[in-house]
């Protein structure tokens, strides 16, 4: 079952950032034109960014690409640490998602359902990787079933690891409201997961 998949991989629960304490050096190198350093930044944030965008928009890959283009343009002028960088990047991502939603409203599109996405994972020699991907995507879909506000705050506050003040700034709420909403969203997520048979 999916719940077993989740409980099987404790090694994947490593939430340490790829860059960590060396972020400042990596950022400075990237700002100086070092492509390898920039690739480190990309690999550090891209997975969480993509998962966040999958929650709030059906055009996650396109919006992620637009987000990074904007980051490339603004990188030389950016000043701050890793938390500020993430807050800045997710702010751009949200704006690009809103823009994509407006343009999509002019040309409606039919997104794939979650079950159709799971059925595409059919490579037998990558079963383990596929199951891992299914589990992550399944959780993303579970979070997507929450109200939009709850889903977004869970992704920003818990998954992306942004501070309450940064999340509040992004979504347009107070830090106190973000904390209350995060608690409610987590309780509701636990309830959904329990109903889906993921948890005990």
């Amino acid at each position: 079952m999916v719940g077993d998949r989740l409980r099987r991989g404790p090694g994947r629960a490593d939430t340490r950032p790829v860059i960590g304490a060396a972020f400042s050096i990596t950022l400075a190198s990237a700002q100086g034109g070092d492509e390898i350093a920039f690739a480190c930044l990309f690999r550090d944030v891209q997975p969480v960014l993509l998962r966040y965008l999958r929650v709030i928009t059906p055009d996650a890959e396109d919006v992620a690409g637009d987000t990074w283009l904007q980051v490339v343009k603004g990188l030389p002028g950016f000043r701050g640490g890793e938390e500020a960088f993430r807050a800045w990047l997710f702010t751009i991502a949200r704006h690009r998602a809103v823009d994509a939603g407006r343009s999509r409203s002019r040309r409606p599109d039919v997104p794939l359902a979650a079950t159709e996405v799971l059925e595409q994972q059919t490579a037998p020699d990558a079963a383990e990787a596929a199951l891992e991907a299914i589990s992550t995507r399944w959780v993303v879909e579970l979070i997507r079933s929450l109200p939009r506000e709850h889903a977004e705050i869970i992704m920003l506050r818990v998954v992306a690891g942004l501070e309450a003040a940064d999340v509040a700034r992004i979504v347009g709420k107070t830090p106190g409201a973000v904390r209350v909403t995060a608690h409610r969203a987590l309780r509701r997520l636990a309830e959904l997961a329990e109903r889906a048979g993921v948890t005990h």
Partner: protein
Amino acid sequence: MPGFPFPGRPGGEHDEPLLDMIIARRALPPDAPAVMHDLARMLAALAGPAEPGELTGEAAVRAAFRRAASPAGVSSTARRPVRRRRSRHARGSVRSRAWLATAMVAAVAGLGSVLAAYTDVLPSPIQQLAHVAVAAPAPPSISTQQPVMLGTGRRSASHKARPPSSPPALQPRRSPTTAPASDPTPTASRRPRRRPLPSSSPGHRTPGPACSAAPSGPMQCTGLTWQTVQPTPDPYVP
């Protein structure tokens, strides 16, 4: 079924510390409800490293980065030194322009001062300095109509320059009913009366007001009575 509190139920806030720990990605205590442990695992998996297919856009993003960091025809490593050289050159040219402007202003000010000295529009002490420094005309001496208060460094506007000569020193005697023409400092009233500055040698003029003196006979001026005295050494000029 674990006793997992549902939102909105009274007393359902006791799980807030555990939820805060999940949000902060801290390890839950072992006796926390199993649903909390599962919730933490679910969310930690979402924050994990990239999965297959999640980095497929890296090549395009890196290409965009290369284009942004390296304009056409210039490599990314070469761009940085050029930017630094340009900024150093820009700073150097700005500094040299600033120095040039300062030198020009100083030169114009100096020329203006010299011209003012030669046109005798400067105050007397400054005119005296200019006379010593650049051989500008000497400041005019006092006229017979206006008294000069020694030691104050001030003179009336009607003073005219007198040729360097060695007239007898004059000592003004102030009448009790006559107030001094000016007293710019509070200590001037406590100063003793000073003798006028004599011209001890031809061409020698000491700074300070000078008295115009007739070769003989008393001088008449407003409020003061002059009398001829023997030449004295240059008095102290504060």
